[in-house]
């Protein structure tokens, strides 16, 4: 089974995020980068499919040179090869155009199934999967918390309110992964895996290599622009009602505060 996993490198979930002076981006200097955790679930799912059906797992991403680290980590986990869409024009592209480049890079690998996280822990747009599927004209099975395949049909479960629904689709198909670390339990790269990763093929592709015109990726073509970023407001400290009151007095004070100050009742 020929599998493509589209991944994204995101700041570590433990990072302290700060807004850059331009107010439109974050300070990336000194940040620690990881594979987006949901994309890591996708790598794990891909490696499980491969161990069952054989085939090839290719990881695809875009971005500055540092993203090679994410690709190497995926290779160390067990992926077979990697593609890095590395083109300066991508810097100013909006999500739609980035996704177009990723779809083109994935198509080059002639996949039967494309996997990726349902969302990324950076901008959390949750759009890539649906857009790539749409561009390829493929069915999209979203938010998978399980994934099985007999080699012809793919079956997933996705959570819905109060339960799960089972979806299936013939190949080719694009699946976005939901769930949690506990559900997918993505494997760690082993030390021999890390050494092998160094020798696995990693291709860099320009937009022109993918049959795309860099001119279409300029900032003026963007349909979405980030105009400003701001930190969530600081939460005010909670207020404890005590004042030496008994239970009834505290209840009375609480009702008064909710009514007169917070005005919620």
């Amino acid at each position, binding site marked *: 089974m020929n599998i493509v996993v589209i991944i994204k490198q995101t700041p570590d979930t433990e990072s302290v995020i700060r807004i850059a*002076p331009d107010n439109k981006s974050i300070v990336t200097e*000194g*940040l620690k980068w990881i594979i987006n955790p949901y994309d890591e679930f996708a790598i794990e799912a891909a490696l499980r499919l491969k161990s069952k059906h054989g085939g090839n797992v290719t990881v695809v991403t875009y971005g500055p040179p540092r993203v090679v680290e994410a690709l190497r*980590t995926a290779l160390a986990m067990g992926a077979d090869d990697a593609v890095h869409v590395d083109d300066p024009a991508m810097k100013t592209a909006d999500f739609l155009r980035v996704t177009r480049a990723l779809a083109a890079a994935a198509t080059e690998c002639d996949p039967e199934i494309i996997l990726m996280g349902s969302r990324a822990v950076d901008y959390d747009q949750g759009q890539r999967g649906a857009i790539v599927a749409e561009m390829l004209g493929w069915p999209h099975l979203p938010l998978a918390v399980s994934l099985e395949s007999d080699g012809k049909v793919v079956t997933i479960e996705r959570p819905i309110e109060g339960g799960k629904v089972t979806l299936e689709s013939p190949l080719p198909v694009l699946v976005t992964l939901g769930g949690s*670390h506990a559900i997918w339990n993505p494997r*760690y*790269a082993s*030390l021999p895996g*890390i050494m092998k990763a*160094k020798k696995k093929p990693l291709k860099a592709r320009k937009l022109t290599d993918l049959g795309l015109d860099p001119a279409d990726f300029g900032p003026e073509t963007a349909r979405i622009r980030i105009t400003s970023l701001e930190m969530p407001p600081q939460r005010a400290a909670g207020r404890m009602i005590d004042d030496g009151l008994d239970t009834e007095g505290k209840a009375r004070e609480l009702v008064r505060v909710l009514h007169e100050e917070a005005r919620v009742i």
Partner: protein
Amino acid sequence: MKLLADERDIKFVLHEQLRIEELSRYPRFSEFSREICDMVLDQAEKLAEKEFYPTNRKGDEEGCTFEDGQVRVPGCFREPYRLYCEGGWLAMADPPEVGGQGFPFLLGNACLEFLGSANWAVMMYPGLTHGAARLLERHGSRELQDIYMYRMYSGEWAGTMCLTEDVAGSDVGSLRTKAVKREDGSYSISGQKIFISCGMHDLTENIVHMVLARTEGAPRGAKGISIFVVPRLLPREDGILEDNDVRCAGIEKKLGIHGSSTCVLNFGENGNCRGFLLGEENAGMRIMFDMMNEARLFVGMQGLCHANAAYLHALQYAKDRIQGAPVERMKDPFAPRVPIIQHPDVRRMLMFMKSSTEGMRALMHLASYCIDRVRAAQDPGERERFQGYVDLLIPICKSVGSDLGFRVCETAIQVYGGYGYSREYPVEQFLRDCKIASIYEGTNGIQALDLVGRKLTLKRGQLVKNALAAIDEILAKVRTNFNLRDMVQIYDEAQESLIQVTKFFALKGMTDEFHVPLLYAKPYLDLCGDVSMGFLLLWQAHLADRRLREIYRDHNASDDVSRGKVLRENRSAAFYFGKIASARFFINQVLTQAGGRARSIMNNDKSALDIPDHGFALV
């Protein structure tokens, strides 16, 4: 929260100070690169955060249990142990020919910073196994290696070191376990060993003990000790494992590392325990000492690991915990309450912890780096020189790591206040787990005797001279840095004090007052530790100062206001500023005491020797 070890500082030591990548010029490490190094560190941190640390408290509370001769480790240890072995971590710094991954030992210890900080008790099992497997690698016959070594390096079977007996602890030469040669060339082993770390457990099917014992007619004392490979289960030729008459008679209830089993082992209760000689008869101590350097460094690392976690937890707590008004509005009841990190006394404690931890890190990793150079060197002169550094550094690493590590844990509790003393918070466990490090693998008193009695006198003091020359070479660059000259001066004075005490010891050693160096060996070792760490931090300050000035220049920051802005906004700038602050704090607060410490030794005060035993207290 990543509160196990300071990844940025680890990378600073590896890349900027010791330049680990340059090891790839040796054939042994030709495949090694910075990219690989960072990937390995990332995985170690991830494994530590996600698998090791979540089992730390649980393992402490559950502890090991002993029932019907069987020892059970906390159930939650199985998964981290499995992942550790399957990932190839146990033999990560051993050559591929024996099943290892061939990484530098330095990288191995850098990874240990994460894994050991997350859960030291789990790390005990592979740690002991590795030491035993390494003895087999260095001294075992091909047959013993085929049967045991590969299975141990993979973690399939575990290993131990069995030295201590009830009358033979620090005085290992007094041990009484017997080995009687059998017709088939193997030996019948009988005797009891105590305090055996990981002596019995249920993480692996089999455990292979390295047992010190006496053959019949062997000379008295340490010269008559041999070392034997004694498996708990003996593999028959058809592969079936047979009981080898090794019994666990009980486990210790301890202050800390509850998840690590500490066992009483009885060998040959029924006369059916077979052992296989490692090397030659009566060569046991020499062989055992072969792995002692790494084992002692492992224990020094333990102290560093607990200090790591204790410091980072206390730092986070100090940022979160709101208590008290800012110092300038101390008497104003309406002043806003602030996080305790704003209080000068708390900041001083944090700086003590930061600078100590960073000093220890540099010390441990320098020793690891020297071990790599010994292993990789092709020139015998180079190998000998680095072996000399290792020999000198090991007792310092073991003792400083464990003692100062404990002090850092203690200070962490102080930062937490009453909560730190309670089980609700993790720092009290770090302190309990840390204490053993100053005791096992040769008490710190023994380390001091090793340094003063053996290492100083080796090759007529050449080890010390070589080390001082190497320090001088590096300091020559630091001396050109005008910003650091106040620190250099204090360092020079401290080093001179140390040299004075060293000469004092050499003179006393030749007189009938030879017991004075023994009396003050430990304070001398502490002084060596302070001076070594002072040197390493000064070296770091020099590197950091250069980088910081580059960052200022890149941001056109030439005055205090613009520099202050860079420090607030630029993580790297804050880091390098912090490195210089560590050096400045340590050198001013600790190294300034070197003169007093030297005087306390050279005053030749013998009150501790002169006092009659019953003069200590009439009880």
